[in-house]
């Protein structure tokens, strides 16, 4: 029952988006924004091609490493700052100001360090994802009710038992929220890096298509990325909701 309603809602949103796309296309013209029909027709031809597969794979590899770094470093910083009060007090304003800084201004520095390499793009992607993961992990740990810690002591739990069986599950829903935002921002970072300085990857494909006035290819890549991001986001949101439902 609820599942069919959800599906209906999603379908309605998709239809509205397609209509808006068509309307915008009428407004700005086919050179800037091809309509949904020619784009989807192009998509059907382009996605199975070798060229698409190569570029999509390049982006996926880069994104995978960047995400690994975002999650690994972000979780480590977040846990440390959540547990150790002084580090949290010192680190939080620094992380927040870094979070608000447009990281694209630092891309030249990354390029000068790493050159046009995979490491540079991975670093730039991770720079976007680390901060939200760290900040939300920290707040997740700080929001654990103090009475849990008192209960742990009255139930004679060891330090490790307290962390694994109590602190971790208590903080998990909010941490997954951080991972979800980290996912989106890491993808943004990787695509930006590919757009500015890369010979392969979906980001560079978009820029090339724009320079060659191939609006259909440009939009096709955008649609694919949109679908990928929306699906991943929906999956993580579903996990988050399942965890939250019990709270």
């Amino acid at each position, binding site marked *: 029952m609820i599942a069919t309603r959800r599906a209906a809602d999603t379908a309605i949103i998709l239809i509205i988006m397609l209509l808006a796309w068509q309307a915008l296309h009428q407004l700005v013209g086919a050179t800037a924004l091809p309509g949904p029909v020619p784009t989807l027709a192009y998509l059907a031809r382009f996605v199975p091609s070798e060229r698409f597969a190569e570029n999509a794979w390049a982006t996926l590899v880069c994104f995978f490493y960047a995400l690994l770094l975002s999650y690994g470093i972000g979780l480590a910083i977040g846990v440390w700052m959540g547990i150790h009060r002084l580090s949290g007090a010192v680190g939080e304003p620094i992380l927040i100001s870094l979070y608000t800084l447009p990281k694209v201004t630092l891309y030249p520095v990354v390029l000068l360090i790493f050159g046009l390499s995979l490491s540079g793009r991975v670093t730039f992607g991770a720079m976007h994802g680390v901060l939200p993961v760290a900040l939300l992990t920290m707040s997740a740990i700080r929001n654990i009710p103090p*009475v849990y810690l*008192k209960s742990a002591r009255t*139930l004679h739990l060891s330090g490790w038992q307290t962390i694994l069986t109590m602190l971790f599950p208590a903080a998990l829903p909010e941490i997954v929220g951080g991972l979800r935002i980290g996912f989106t921002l890491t993808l943004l970072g990787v695509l930006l890096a590919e757009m500015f300085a890369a010979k392969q990857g979906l980001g560079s494909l978009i820029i090339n298509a724009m320079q060659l006035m191939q609006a259909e290819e440009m939009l096709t890549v955008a649609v694919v990325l949109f679908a990928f991001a929306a699906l991943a986001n929906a999956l993580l949101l579903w996990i988050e909701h399942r965890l939250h439902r*019990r709270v």
Partner: protein
Amino acid sequence: MTTAAADADIHAALSGVTRVYPETIATPPVHALGPLDLELKRGEFFAVVGPSGCGKSTLLEVLAGLQQPTAGTVMFEGRTVSGKVPDGIGVVFQEDASFPWMTVWDNAAFGLRRNGVATAEIRRRVDDALAFMGLTEFARAYPAQLSGGMRQRVCISRTLVLQPRLILLDEPFGALDAQTRLLMGDEVLRLWRRTGATVLLITHALDEAAMLSDRIGAMSARPGRFLDIVVTGWSRERDSKIVSEPQFGEITGRLWEDLRGESLKSLGHPGMAAG
């Protein structure tokens, strides 16, 4: 010196206990408690009442070994309590401490699973505790599906399965409505009779203290000290029906007499306290 027989009768004791919270960047040092003496007899039901902020919860945490006293000693079953919660003491807190990510059954089993008890024994004790607290049919439910009173019963079950000999209750019904509190009071009495444990109840409700306890300690405003110890003289088989007895009114009346001035002090009316 007390005799050995009298010592055996004393289950837990605080002597000359004070607790001063050290100074921090934002706050001056706070003298929360004492100096204060208290002897809990084995198997008795003792309530502590006092104005808010008088150090009642500090008293409980010091007795439980959750906080170190600044001075004085804490004894439980003839041993000094220091730095960790001794085996045999169970605590139920005011805040909801049930874990939302596990079922009622798993919540109740939590402490046993972490302490290496055999599976069959865990099952027996948890089923028993849930049946006793009237939670059997909610064993597979999650705390979010239960009312506040039932969640507090989950926390009591979690403590109960560890078979504590001294049960410390820190305003466990503070967040519940008055009727539910009366009924929960009956459950606590039932629990006290069946386990034979010593119970220390912290509460701000004079009627709750008067109805449940053998003895009641009335505490002063901060730093908390005992102003009066009231002996109720109820039979062990009491329940919430005693609230209609004249003696009940006398006890609550005496407690209010003890505490009225102190409560005004904690409200910041020192002048009125004298009158």
